[in-house]
Structures are given as structure tokens and as C-alpha cells.
């Protein structure tokens, strides 16, 4: 069951990713992207990589009117796709070799032990009310 899910996710992610990436379509042509040697990799979904370690999964070489594309997925220890790398990409279009897959969470509030605060606090009015002002006053 898990294999099916991973394979389906691979297909969906690659499709979604190319949708974003082919935002600037260009003429035909392709190049191979230098990518560091993969960690012990499973070249197919049933490669038997042990759980608990990051692993990679290479897609097939696909050609269409935009050029030739081959993707490598980096799959985290939690079995989630953490990055899509391009082993081959068209010579034009976006100049990226990899795009991370973002983790999705629900917004939560916390009051934590911190040294400083990052946030748009560009006026003295917003600064006075900010956590940063409280930290500076310590």
C-alpha cells in the first residue's frame, strides 16, 4: 500500500512541480545538471531502502515540446518528499536545479524563550507594542 502511495505522490509531485517550473516556456533543447552523487538510492519504489533514512528516487527521462526532463525526488526519513532535483532540464526556463517541497502546517501561537524577533516592525508604533521592545528592555 505504501509503495502505491509513494508512486502516486511521485507522479503528482513531478506534474505539479513541472507546472510551476515551466512557467517560462522556452525553445527546445536540454542539458544535464550536475548533481552530487545520491545517497544509497532506490531507483524504484520497491528498492527496499530502510526506513528512518533519507533516500532518493529517480524518475524516467521524459521529453516533450519544452525539452527533456528527468527528476530525482529526495524522500525524508518521515517518508515525505522533501525536494525535487532536476537531473536533466531544458536549457531555458527557470534557472533552478532543485525545488524543495514545503511542509504544510496550521498556524499556531507560542510564547517561547527567544533572543530576538523577526517581523515587519518598521514603525515606532509597532515597535512599542512588539515582543522585540520587551526583549530590548530586559
Amino acid at each position, binding site marked *: 500500500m505504501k509503495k502505491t502511495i509513494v508512486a502516486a505522490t511521485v507522479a503528482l509531485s513531478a506534474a505539479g512541480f513541472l507546472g510551476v517550473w515551466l512557467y517560462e516556456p522556452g525553445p527546445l533543447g536540454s542539458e544535464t545538471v550536475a548533481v552530487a552523487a545520491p545517497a544509497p538510492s532506490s531507483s524504484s519504489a520497491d528498492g527496499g531502502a530502510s526506513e528512518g533514512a533519507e533516500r532518493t528516487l529517480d524518475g524516467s527521462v521524459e521529453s516533450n515540446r519544452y525539452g527533456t526532463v528527468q527528476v530525482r525526488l529526495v524522500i525524508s526519513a518521515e517518508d515525505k518528499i522533501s525536494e525535487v532535483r532536476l537531473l536533466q532540464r531544458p536549457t531555458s526556463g527557470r534557472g533552478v536545479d532543485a525545488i*524543495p517541497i*514545503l511542509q504544510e*502546517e496550521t498556524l499556531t501561537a507560542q510564547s517561547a524563550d527567544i533572543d*530576538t524577533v*523577526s517581523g515587519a*516592525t*518598521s514603525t515606532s508604533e509597532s515597535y512599542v507594542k512588539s*515582543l522585540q521592545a520587551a526583549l*530590548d528592555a530586559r
Partner: protein
Amino acid sequence: MNRVEQVMGLPVSVDVRSGGGLAGHAIDGVFGWLREVDARFSPFKADSEVCRYDRGELSPSELSDDLLEVLSLCDHYERLSGGAFTARLPGRRLDPNAVVKGWAVQRAASLLLAEGLDVFCINAGGDVITSGEPEPGRAWRVGIRHPERPDAVCAVVESSGGAVATSAEYERGAHILDGRTGRPPAGLLSVTVAADDLVTADSLATAAFAMGIEGIAWVASQPGCQVLVIDAERQVHRSPRLRLA
């Protein structure tokens, strides 16, 4: 030693944890530099270099190397963002502030390092540069402001020798506009970028915020940065490699 001053229209906090008695003098130098930048590059001061250039009183060949560097950074991020980020909105005066802030504060950090001070945290209006560790074995803990609650954070990022910038509109009165439309962007509550330097972090955060929803995938694909984006649906989108505390 910690000091806060209002400069370049921003509350700026400089917290230096090394150098002992040297720190006070070095912090004087930091604020002196930031006041100099304000005088030279403010779009709100009629006699600044930026305003004189904008009015045509200076030709490009008469500009300082510093302003040329800032303008070339503006052009770089304008191209990279497809025009969403711009220092030249139609009908408005030249405003390179979005780059000037990160550039000036990054240079301020190098002033401290040049004095041999290597443990510090500078916070300029919510944009942060860190160096070293405040305690052995512990990175600086940078809270990311909750977009709807000034008294709370929504994440804590670890940083030692890097920059963290957040772009947002917590209060009404939009100051970030989408350069492609000239209108305030919609779809995002805040964009935080962690990178090696503040020019990169601040410019990418501002550009992504200006782009709206499409800025999420765009900023995540930029090399050398980790992001935490909160959209208007209160969904958090986070790079897997962002260093959370």
C-alpha cells in the same frame, strides 16, 4: 551590551556579546554608519543622493560606488521576481529602500566583525543578522512574529552566522506594492526567509510578499534560502531544512 536607536525610520537593536569595553565604540560606529546611509539614500530627504539622481541633478557617472551597487541589486531582484519587486513604481519617486535596509545592515555587521567582535545580533525593524553563539553550543533563537498577534511567535528559528528577514503587513496602510500591477498584493500574511546574508533574505522576502500566492513556490526555489510563509488561510508553508529550535 545592547543599544536601541531609531535610524533610517526603523527601530534598530544592536546586541553585542563579545569584546567587553570595545563594544560601545563599535556600536557607535554601527549607528554612525546607519545615519550616514539615511542621509545619502533616503527617498524622503530632498538633498539625498537618491533624490538628486531621481531629479536628474546627478548623472549615472557621478553616482557613488555604494549607490551603484544598491541600484544594481535592485535591478537584479526586479529581474529575478519578474517585476514584482521594483524600486521604480510608475508615477513615484525612485525608492531603493527595500534593498538599502538589508545592504546597510549587512555592512554594519561587517563593521563589528572588522573590530574583532564576532558574537552579536542586530535587529533592524524585524530583520535580523546573527554572528556566533550567545552561549557556547547554543545558536541565537529568532522568534518569527505571529502575523495576527504582536505578543506571540509562530515559530523559532536557530541562527548563528546568518540572516532572517520577514516581510508582512500587520497593520493597514500597505507599503509593499506589486510592481507588476502597482497594487497591494493579496494572499499572504507574512514571508520569512533565512539566508547567509540580509540582502538576500530581505530582498527575497519582500519580492515574494509582493508576488502573493505564486511567491511561495518562487521563493522556495531560490538557492541558498529556507522559507516560512503564512498564507491568508493561516496555512504555514515551511522549507524542510529550515533550522527550527
